[in-house]
């Protein structure tokens, strides 16, 4: 089974849902299938998320107020949940801040 190594990063407070750890180097197992961010979100929920999934996910996407970046680009420019993950991709989930 081929492995798909990627880096996940959580910022802006989103890391609190992941044991307060910002950087996660993970290996997805590809099994002849392609990994999309949509599938990755389910994988994160089942494998990484430590508490309260509703603070991270909503309706098969991320909840309002979280921005997803693929290799430093807004996922809106990369077909959002349908983006096909490539080896060594860095996917950042950033919760927007409102304090000042």
């Amino acid at each position, binding site marked *: 089974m081929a492995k798909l190594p990627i880096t996940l990063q959580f910022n802006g407070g989103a890391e609190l849902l992941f044991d307060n750890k910002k950087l996660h180097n993970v290996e997805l197992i590809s099994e002849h299938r392609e990994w999309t961010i949509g599938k990755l979100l389910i994988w994160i929920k089942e494998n990484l998320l430590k508490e309260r999934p509703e603070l991270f996910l909503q309706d098969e996407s991320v909840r309002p*107020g979280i921005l997803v970046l693929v290799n430093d680009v807004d996922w809106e420019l990369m077909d959002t949940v349908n983006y096909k993950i490539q080896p060594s991709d860095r996917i950042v989930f*950033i*919760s927007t801040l*409102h*304090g000042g």
Partner: protein
Amino acid sequence: MQYFYILEFLYRKERMTSKDEISELKDEILELKTLLKQKEKRLKELINSSENCPYSTQLSCQEISRYSRHMLIPQIGMKGQIAMKQSSVLIIGLGGLGCPAALYLAAAGIGTITFVDYDEVEITNFNRQILHAEDNINVSKVESACDMLQANSNTLQNLFDKNKYDVVLDGSDNVATRYLLNDMCVLNQVPLVSGSALQMEGQLTVYNFEDGPCYRCLFPIPPPPDTVTNCGDGGVLGAVTGVIGALQALETIKILTKADNVMSGRLLIFDASSTTFLNVKLRKKQETCDVCGLKPKITQLIDYEQFCGSKAHDKVIDINILTEVENICVKELATLEKESVIIDVRPKIEYEICKLPNTINIPYTYFKDNKNSEDITKTLLSFRSKTSRVFFICRRGNDSQRTEASMLILSLLILHFPFTEKKTPEIEQDRDCL
């Protein structure tokens, strides 16, 4: 016995004298300050009226010297400096972001800066809100900032009706105000320089500039209110707001001087814990956007508190989910303390700042997690030999109420504690000391 009375009398007398002297000194200082301000204002008027530069019609001699180090930069020059002098900037929020931004913009020679803030100066502001002087506690932040920048303050109403701003700088601290400012800027076609910060992180971008997105293009739906942490709860490092506030001033200057590469369509993410900046590419203006899209649904300002489901300030709202008899004030608690078990449900980091003696720290988050209920039952049972009373205490009296409410739901615990009188004390006086 008599000796004691004498001592106490002397002590009281001493205290009265120093109290009188303090208020006398305060009055005297206030009077002197007012006089000083008048004199400084007059001096400034005299200096400014007598220094027309024979070689420039638009800048005075003093201005040319004062801004020379800016004007020597090719990207700014004489043209940029004059543009700044003729421009008008609106700063919303004179907090951690607004203070450094205002300082740099005032120092750069922006012609008119308008400040908006509903709040007053508090002691908790001083770690980051560097414009406010310590003796301005309880003074409005706008007045306090004008004080420091030696500016005249006038009260403005109907901001956009009678005034034209070249840039709006968002240094606010809540979601509702951020949506309001976004819509206001789109409807009035003004770029919005947005900054935000929390704990050790900061974010910066420019909305509504050329073909770049607005706040609603990125976030059409506001975040659920319980996912938003404010500075009063999470904390924020002063140097972090300083970095972001200074960058907001920088982007403002770039827009005013028509520089290239404004932070529009990009987001800067500053992580102070690793001193790293991430500069990411954002989507363009969205055709489907409710306010700046092709068919906008929002053509005038709406009720933003209702839209966001949260208030347009970052103060914590006190909840009231228990009945009066289930509450106890902290002074009353002090008289009962010895025969009771007091559980402090604040986060560990707050418990370490200050705590009452003989209390046990079990954070609310631990109670909240259902999988801990067996552990909690065991812990509470272990107190049974000592007491029949359990009290919950916290910083604002909110989490202690929530804890108690969650305990009431776990009927198992109620059975084990047939005589438990659960009460929720509030630390009234210490409410803002953390």
